[in-house]
């Protein structure tokens, strides 16, 4: 038996979902005997059968990837409950197994996958999808690259109608539900529990979600950004969000301002808002030169 055959057989077996009692299944999803596959490639010893030896790797695989996904999507887990989250995770990881050398990217395809598998989030579709988008944005904002920031003086020197970009780590989200507050509340609660129990961080994946009431729908415009290497959520006015989206899409400053609907504010108020927003965004280092 050649190396390729051994690795394909073992890899397929290792990725078979576990039984309810966290053991290896008897058969693959297409009906082949996993006992026979194990016996074909793996030797038994005086304590373990071939099946049991393969099962160690099968269990390790699922424990590792499920824990990683649970850690990255705590908010979604709270919204749909532990049991549903585990079912969702198993289905997702079967359809979208890791294609990256790092577990950091395990959830990169979760949002699009979930949009075509809404049976896992029935009744809470909007809030669940918003939460997944927010949690993935947070992962990206955490370690995405940054470029030298433009100061207010740099911006002024770019001329009357400059073109500049947003920092690559900034994520702009239009949400149907205020999941930012929900996620912050979950984190805050966990921190309190950690202090009380003195639990180590690595236990987080085993923590059970506590039921809580979910927020009512309300449109939120959010920037997920980074300052001093920590990720923050910043709520934005609709107009501010529109300008930032336009700048990210390569519009010049005047085009970005013009493409926003200013009907709800007076011209004077709009000018004041613009000045205040750009001062704030500059101070946060959100702008960089276009690449």
């Amino acid at each position: 038996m050649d190396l390729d055959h051994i690795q394909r057989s073992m890899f397929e077996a290792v990725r078979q979902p576990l039984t309810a009692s966290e053991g290896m299944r008897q058969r693959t999803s297409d009906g082949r005997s996993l006992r026979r596959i194990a016996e074909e490639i793996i030797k038994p010893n005086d304590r373990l059968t071939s099946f049991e030896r393969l099962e160690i790797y099968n269990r390790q695989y699922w424990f590792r990837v499920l824990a990683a996904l649970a850690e990255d999507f705590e908010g979604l887990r709270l919204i749909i409950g532990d049991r549903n989250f585990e079912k969702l995770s198993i289905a997702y990881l079967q359809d979208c197994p890791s294609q990256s050398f790092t577990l950091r990217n395990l959830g990169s395809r979760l949002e699009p996958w979930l949009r075509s598998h809404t049976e896992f989030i029935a009744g809470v579709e909007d809030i669940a999808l918003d939460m997944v988008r927010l949690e993935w944005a947070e992962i990206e904002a955490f370690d995405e690259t940054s470029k030298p920031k433009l100061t207010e003086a740099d911006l002024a020197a770019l001329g009357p109608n400059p073109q500049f970009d947003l920092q690559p780590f900034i994520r702009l989200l239009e949400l149907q539900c205020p999941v930012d507050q929900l996620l912050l509340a979950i984190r805050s609660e966990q921190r309190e529990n950690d202090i009380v129990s003195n639990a180590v961080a690595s236990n987080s994946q085993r923590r059970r979600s506590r039921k809580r009431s979910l927020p009512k729908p309300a449109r939120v415009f959010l920037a997920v950004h980074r300052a001093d290497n920590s990720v923050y959520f910043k709520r934005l006015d609709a107009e501010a969000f529109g300008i930032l989206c336009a700048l990210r899409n390569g519009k010049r400053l005047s085009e970005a301002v013009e493409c926003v609907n200013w009907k709800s504010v007076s011209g004077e108020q709009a000018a004041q808002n613009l000045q205040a927003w750009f001062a704030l965004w500059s101070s946060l280092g959100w702008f960089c030169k276009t690449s």
Partner: protein
Amino acid sequence: MPANRFNGFTEYGVGIGLRIPHYNHILERKPVVDWFEIISENFMVDGGRPLAMLDQILEQYRVVQHGVSMYFGSVEPLNREHLRRLKALVRRTKTPWLSDHLCWGSVDGSYSHDLLPMPYTFEAAKKTAQKIREARDFLEVPVVVENVSSYAEFHASEMTEWQFLTEVVEDADCGMLLDVNNIYVSSRNHSFDPYEYMHNVPHERVAQIHIAGHSKFEKYILDTHDHAVIDPVWQLYARAIELTGPTATLLEWDDHIPSFDEVHGEALKANRYVREKVVA
């Protein structure tokens, strides 16, 4: 053998793994530590806190890179994006050598995120050695391979694990990261003599040694890195030092991580065996 071409002719002492729960302690107290080992994949990112923390550590400490997902033993080719990011990190850390495992873990671009055991065949040894050479040529730094703990053996195997390890490192002309705990764990799981393993690998190729704790179950031992090192592993380490000479040694403690002082104190026990060797 402490300084050799496989560890960049360095003489590092006893180090520990750089782990998040210890960041504050390290940066605030600046403890004296010979060197830190980092998990390369945790820092193969484009920015943010991971790289900022690493840069602060690099200002004051020597760092060696240890990888978990190169998968030299996988049939598929090396991941070019992985190599590109790894090389960028090598330039940042100036690691004198770089280690990863003698294992496989991916098929057709899908990753298990586990260190899956090799069948000990000549075909596997040849393919694995070829990939190690390719990685070293690309990365331009000595690459050393670590023996893994395993829980399964293959019918296809044509030699012992230590013969396979030797075959690979000699064909690739690379160094070894000898994980003493992994030898012990596998010896218990597969009923071989760990000292026979230790005696029969090319000692002159040992660039680094790992020690760690593990978890004992009814029918097998699992390499969990969540305990102190047990005495039989220390005894095996003592023998390794006799055979290789004082060699850069690192304690791995990755789960249920205690205080920095406890981890560092456990690692420094290694010096006892190094001193005994020097005195002898």
